[in-house]
């Protein structure tokens, strides 16, 4: 199971990568393995407002349907339309071609992207998945 060191994570098993105020979001390798083969993904519409910790889509695997939570507050810029035809990208490459959506977030006082303060580091996320078994 891989947990790239340069990403942020949530306890709901999303990863977050910020470039300026554009934040990319996907689900972790751990989540993809737990779900099994992903067969359908419902993503928020571009332009939609999303709220940290609120459901904004669905990830459906052979055996289950799970809510997809937004890890940040902001406006959806873009979604990964390749997942429509090939949702298995989420299993194969969860951190790269399996990304799900991009959100524009506000800037904080220092001009950095305003991310929730409770995002986890790679080490913290790895610890969480270990304690979950």
């Amino acid at each position, binding site marked *: 199971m891989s947990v790239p060191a340069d990403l942020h994570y949530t306890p709901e098993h999303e990863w977050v990568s910020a470039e300026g105020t554009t934040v990319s979001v996907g689900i972790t390798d751990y989540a993809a393995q737990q779900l*099994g*083969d992903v*067969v*359908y993904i419902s993503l928020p519409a571009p332009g939609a407002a999303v709220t940290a910790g609120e459901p904004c889509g*669905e990830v*459906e695997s*052979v*055996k289950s*349907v799970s809510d997809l939570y937004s890890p940040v507050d902001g406006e959806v810029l873009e979604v990964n339309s390749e997942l429509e035809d090939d*949702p*298995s990208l989420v*299993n194969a490459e969860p951190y790269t071609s399996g990304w799900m959506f991009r959100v524009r977030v506000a800037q904080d006082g220092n001009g950095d992207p305003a991310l929730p303060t409770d995002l986890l580091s790679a080490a913290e996320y790895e610890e969480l998945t270990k304690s979950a078994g």
Partner: protein
Amino acid sequence: MTSFAGWQMPLRYASETAEHQAVRHAAGIFDLSHMGEILVTGPGAGAALDYALTGHLSIVPVGRARYTMICAPDGGVLDDLVVYRRGEQEFLVIANASNTGVVLSSLRERVAGYDATVADATSDYALIAVQGPTAAGIVAPLTDLDLAAMKYYAGAFGEVAGRAAWVARTGYTGEDGFEIYCRPEDAEHVWTALTADGAGAGLIPAGLAARDTLRLEAGMPLYGNELGLDVTPFEAGLGRVVKFDKPGDFVGREALAARAEAGPERRLVGLTIDSRRIARHGYPVSAEGRTCGVVTSGAPSPTLGSPIAMAYLEGPGTGELTVGIRGAAVPVHLTDLPFYRRSKEK
């Protein structure tokens, strides 16, 4: 891993889709040791099972198997079963793990008037299934049995990888394959020998998720989904397992005869879906916007490349059918069962 009827079971080893495809095109190996094994023995064993089950077991030849059911007096299905006749006076009844206790107590009650004994042998057997078109080639070099001569729904005592086993040409995948009942202490050895021998023939371990999509494509019912106390074999389209022409009474005869006469209250149908979304167990089916049934099982079909489902429909189910998938009415199409039938070369 997942909890299933008190057992820890592998839902998948890696990708359930890859496991499914391996069974369709090469072979998969399953650990099915959770299944219940019940031995019914004695001079009256055949007659006792004729009374206890819907099938006509006393005429089954030694070394052959039957798919059958055990019903409640009102005709509701207590479980679906595979029964092997292993000797003149010995039958091995295979029950679903979640129903083993019910089947055992019902059989004990029902054989009371017969010269037969019922014994729970579940913990005496591990069950390893090798399923798929290359299964025979994988198992044959490891056994003293002549598998080429073994017919579908037949079985024999022999050895696999040097360990005693009951080997049967049965399964729950819609493919050719074998089910190997061996002693639990021999299971690891047998599994290891089969996986080593089978790797070159494309054999991979397969879990419960693949087992479910395989049986669904093959149109085989799953107890708790398509079968239950609230349906008779006739609703499930399996009225053929009820042998009214056998002599004597059997549990449920009167109720089942009435149902056969009146026709089923609901019918089990196949559905295909033009979407990637899956119509799952319990989702409502509507015809022209009016609820007319419920989905019993649904999954992506790796063979068809789109989702499939089985559902019980009341009434004719004509007009435009939809399934309510979490608030959205998704169009579905009625189709004949099974969704998949293997091509038979023999």
